[in-house]
């Protein structure tokens, strides 16, 4: 679940909120509707063109706003491999971690300027590195012990008492 992911980069700015990531009109229990809603108002091409393994790269406070996990589901249903941001909103970070979507921050925020939209990168969540096509390596902050425990269990629910990972 936390194997390295290789794909293209989608770039976003600061304060990208969950209503932009996944508009309320696409709230549903139907996975296909949730999947189609990803960044729908912002850029409908994203849900159309995103490929498995792609990486979202954003600025500050990614995922601020609502606690609705449909925003995480939409990212996961589109098989985005990981999100790198200067920092994350608290609830979004927890939700993503609980559901096995790696969210990482750069060791030096300015390094994210090296990561171009549309370029191919490989992100290794455990090694905490983002490797660009030209071989440049952006160091990420290694995930803490608690995050690694949830990743290793395959999600928070597997830490429930009596569960396989608990």
């Amino acid at each position, binding site marked *: 679940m936390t194997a390295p992911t290789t794909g293209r980069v989608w770039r976003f700015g600061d304060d990208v909120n969950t209503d932009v990531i996944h508009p309320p009109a696409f709230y549903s229990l139907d996975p296909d509707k949730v999947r189609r809603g990803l960044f729908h108002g912002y850029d409908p091409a994203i849900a159309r063109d995103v490929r498995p393994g792609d990486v979202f790269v954003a600025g500050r406070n990614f995922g601020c706003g609502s606690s609705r*996990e449909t925003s995480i589901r939409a990212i996961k249903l589109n098989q985005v491999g990981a999100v790198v941001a200067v920092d994350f909103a608290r609830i979004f970070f927890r939700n993503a971690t609980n559901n096995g979507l790696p969210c990482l921050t750069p060791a030096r925020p300015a390094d994210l300027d090296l990561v171009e939209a549309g370029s191919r990168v490989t992100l290794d969540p455990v090694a905490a590195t983002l490797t660009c096509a030209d071989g440049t390596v952006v160091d990420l902050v290694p995930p803490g012990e608690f995050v690694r425990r949830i990743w290793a269990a395959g999600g928070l*629910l597997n830490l*429930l008492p009596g569960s396989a990972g608990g």
Partner: protein
Amino acid sequence: MSGRTISDKVIDEHTLDDDRSAQYRRVRVDAVLGHDATTALLIDDFERRGLSIWDKSKVLLTNDHFAPPATAERADISNKFLGWARGQGMPNLMLDKGICHQLLVEHELCQPGGLIVGADSHTIMAGAVGACATGMGATDILFTLATGETWMRKPASIAVRLRGELPEESGGRDVVLELLRLLGEAGAQYRSLEFHDETTTRLPQDDRFAIANMAVEIGAKFGVFAPDEVTEAYCTARDGRFLGNPVRPDADAVYERVVELDVTDLTARVAKPWSPGNVVPITELEEIPITSAFLGSCASGRLADIAAAAAEVEGKRVHPDVRFVVIPASVEVFKQALRAGYVETLTEAGAQFNHSSCGACGGIDKGVLGSADVCVSSSNRNFRGRMGHWDSRTYLASPRTVARAALRGALTPDLYRAGAALPGGTEEAS
């Protein structure tokens, strides 16, 4: 040892692990809140894993997003949620009674000193009575429902000291919008905002709810008021006697930062599209014609808010180009507004009441905005596309400002200037 803040103490008191230095504490919670839209997301996992709820008496559930449902799909989601909650025999399932956050603060589960989690970001509002309350996603909440526990980091605290005397035309909404202007959308990220009300007249409880509610718009994990006589009076009136365990900070508590805000000259504040942090004093706003005015949401649909709007529109008419929708935050609030005559006053002026629910706040229900709509709203978020069409525009303001703009048909820099002419030839009193 240095002094502790409110959140330090509340987390210490709820810690289950022996290792108090660990980065994440295992904590027990006093109450869990859930609504139809987020709880529906966890039901399949709950049932697949054959879980049971650790203590049903500590869980408050309501349907507020789809109440009553507007589409067949949402009716199915609502029925799934209600069916599950009834099947579990939940004692605190509130059907069509209002917005979950308002129902929580109307309930004795919400006490000073408590640690509360909820499947919605505005759970933080319970901090207005001195609880450490925070929103989480469905997966975290499912874990807590099954165990009564969760993990938390002890957040650093930012103290907000409110001083001076709030002008009559301003309220809690203007205070919190000013804090958003000062701190920005991420200004309290991962922090506990600890509010100290040192104003001369003390902020009424409803103003405190508005402030604590929008603490999450500043990124905060908790938005907690240091409990005082206003808190005790509110809880005592609600519960018949005071049941709380008020937690106050030590005199030498360590804060990452102290924000001093003298509210004496605080004028109306407005957040422009598309960020709650995009705040200006109304006097610096250009004239913005509006098509829609919304008074409601968990941020500001309480009795004091409706009273302020009713006082503004009494004997006047809503501008003919404006649709003015009012949604009381709960059925209890609605009944109080009925008894006080506010519903009649607002209806006579041309406002329309919808059933207590989230309504258009999350772009969910009646009052959703079209592409050309411009709305002035007492809700908490004006994110792009949140209230409807991607091109619609929402300005956040206080209930009083919403009402004045509804009469004027516009947000104008002179909305609070004495003698400014209103439609129908009436003159403002103040």
